[in-house]
């Protein structure tokens, strides 16, 4: 228990300082906490990975020194740049009036906002409690993420046999292990490994996701209740969090890496969209780069997402497109290469190694799989089952996007939609070329295509990566709050809600 608490406090302190250095003034305390967790958990995991990749290993003393150095550096940066970062300074163009938690709203709206925050709190409490009660149980969680956390706790490194010996191929040696490094934090404090404490950290990624989403949407729509509704929507998604009944799978309490990936993709995608409409606020681009860098250390699925961000910014970024793209993509790339990419190249690749399978022959041969892939996708998002499995998320999001109309042509929303479609396409492409198989699949399918079995196992998990971003996009685009703020840069279609307020100021 002590190890868990110390790890969370260390993450919140580090992340809180990162948040302050990035400079968004006057955010709601709930969003501040969510952002502190988001930057802190990602930052601690990245620091631990960096130390391990540099050959220093991961020890309690080493991590304490790294944490202290990072905190001291951020604190110094904050003190030194205090005058420049203060709201109201002419340097960054913020007005004192903009430095507030949320714009004023009516009494009814305020009451509704607080009323929706109550079930949101209950949902988040239930998932944190479940993570604390239940030891890791999901198959992939045990054989990959928690396995590597246990190796870190015993060996102090993942650069040994677990990453190079083919006997450990089942741990997926080229999978980036940020969540394993985070799960190892309680063991560093306690001096012994306990898989309940290791897995108890995972729900906090979900807490960060819900609170960050709440803050962004509440500020962008000028309505606390809309922010709380968006966060509650995501917090009630059965495949991710749950309010009452958890399904097995990739949920927030399952010690899987899918919710952490959702967090960093959502945070990074929204920051990139905000940077697109406010390119003069460089810290938005840095924030996007940092979060996307963390995402690449969580799962390889983040790599096509970063490519999508780059293409989207180049396509929509206007005159400053190259500088903006560089500010987002370069930090993400440096983080990935330094903390994992360079070392991972030396580890054995699986037969699921997708880049090697992306050749014309494999793609052509995989076209025959499009039928079952699209059928599975339709069954997941547009069948009666979606009511139970996704709480109507997909049809509801489509209706909200339809109500938005031309607002969707606004550049920030267009970027978000491009990212969602791009990432979904990348997943479809991966299914078409995958060489994955397993004894269970061969037994169940009796000679059929293993991809059908794989779809059943993984499709909901992959959609989970995108669901929070889709919910955010739909809620931001729809006329839910009945207000029509101006577009972020004053050009293009008007309407919807403005992502520039992601930065914490009125545009």
């Amino acid at each position, binding site marked *: 228990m002590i190890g868990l608490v110390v790890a969370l406090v260390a993450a919140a302190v580090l992340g809180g300082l990162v948040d302050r250095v990035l400079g968004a003034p006057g955010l709601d305390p709930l969003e501040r906490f969510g952002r502190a967790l988001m930057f802190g958990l990602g930052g601690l995991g990245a620091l631990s990975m960096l130390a391990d990749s540099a050959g220093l290993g991961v020890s309690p003393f080493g991590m304490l020194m790294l944490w202290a150095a990072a905190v001291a550096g951020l604190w110094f940066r904050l003190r030194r740049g205090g005058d420049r970062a203060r709201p109201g300074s002419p340097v960054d163009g913020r007005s004192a009036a903009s430095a507030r938690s949320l714009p004023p709203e009516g009494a009814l709206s305020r009451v509704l906002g607080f009323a929706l925050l109550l079930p949101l709190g209950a949902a988040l409490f239930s998932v944190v409690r*479940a993570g604390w*009660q*239940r*030891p*890791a*149980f999901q*198959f992939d969680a*045990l*054989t990959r993420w*928690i*396995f590597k956390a*246990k*190796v870190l706790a*015993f*060996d102090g490194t993942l650069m040994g046999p677990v990453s190079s010996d083919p*006997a*450990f191929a*089942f741990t997926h040696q080229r999978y980036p292990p940020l969540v394993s490094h985070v799960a190892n934090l309680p063991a560093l404090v306690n001096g012994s*490994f*306990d*898989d*309940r404490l290791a897995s108890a950290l995972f729900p906090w990624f979900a807490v960060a996701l819900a609170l960050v989403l709440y803050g962004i949407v509440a500020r962008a729509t000028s309505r606390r209740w809309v922010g709380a*509704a968006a966060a*509650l*929507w995501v917090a*009630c998604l*059965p495949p991710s969090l749950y*309010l*009452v*009944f*958890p*399904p*097995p799978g990739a949920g927030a309490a399952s010690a899987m890496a899918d919710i952490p990936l959702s967090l960093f993709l959502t945070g990074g995608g929204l920051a990139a969209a905000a940077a697109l409409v406010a390119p003069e606020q460089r810290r938005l681009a840095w924030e996007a780069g940092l979060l996307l860098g963390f995402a690449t250390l969580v799962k390889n699925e983040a790599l096509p997402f970063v490519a999508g961000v780059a293409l989207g910014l180049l396509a929509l970024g206007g005159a400053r497109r190259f500088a903006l793209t560089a500010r987002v993509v370069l930090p993400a790339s440096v983080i990935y290469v330094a903390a994992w990419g360079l070392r991972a190249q030396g580890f054995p690749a699986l037969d699921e190694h997708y880049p090697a399978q992306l050749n014309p022959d494999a793609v052509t041969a995989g076209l025959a799989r499009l039928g079952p892939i699209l059928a599975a996708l339709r069954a997941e998002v547009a069948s009666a*089952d979606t*009511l*139970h*499995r996704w*709480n*109507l*998320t997909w049809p*509801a999001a489509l*209706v*909200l996007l339809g*109500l938005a109309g031309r607002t969707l042509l606004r550049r920030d929303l267009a970027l978000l939609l491009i990212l969602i479609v791009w990432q979904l396409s990348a997943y479809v492409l991966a299914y078409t070329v995958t060489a994955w198989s*397993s*004894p*269970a699949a061969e037994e169940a399918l009796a000679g059929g295509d293993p991809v059908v079995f794989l779809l059943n196992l993984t499709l909901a998990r992959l959609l989970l990566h995108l669901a929070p971003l889709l919910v955010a996009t739909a809620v931001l685009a*729809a*006329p*839910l*709050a*009945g207000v029509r703020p101006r577009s972020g840069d004053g050009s293009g279609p008007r309407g919807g809600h403005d992502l520039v307020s992601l930065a914490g100021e009125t545009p």
Partner: protein
Amino acid sequence: MLRTLVARIVLVLVFAAAALKLVPAERLPEALRAGREEFVGAQALGEAVGRDGSAARIGRSLLRGGFAQARSRRAFHWLGLVEEAAVLLPDGGTIQLKGVPRNDAWFLAYDLYPRRVVGLTAEEGSTLEDDSLPGVDLILLGSEPPRLERAGE
């Protein structure tokens, strides 16, 4: 105004779908009922499982039963053997698996770490009659019930 109204109704429907899970179990669809039963089971385990790693592992094996009852019973057996192997072998010892299914072998590799698990899986052709590998301290046989024996016995 109309679009705002429709958008709000859509949002209400999303929460209504989420709230559907609050109705009594006998009126729930099968998938939801399974989820509720698993949650009740997990709650009971939470109360039963202590804070030590051993109890947590037993709890985990039971939770695995939510996916496959056969594996649950098997895992329970394994876990008894895991405890025994942990007593018999110092950290760093080696255990050979014979005739153990792949998924169980991977779980065992996790449960037994830092002891090293070696040998092919049943899917790769391993049987109870496999030759023992050099340098192995213990052998775990995937028989019914599974059992543990010292190498050379």
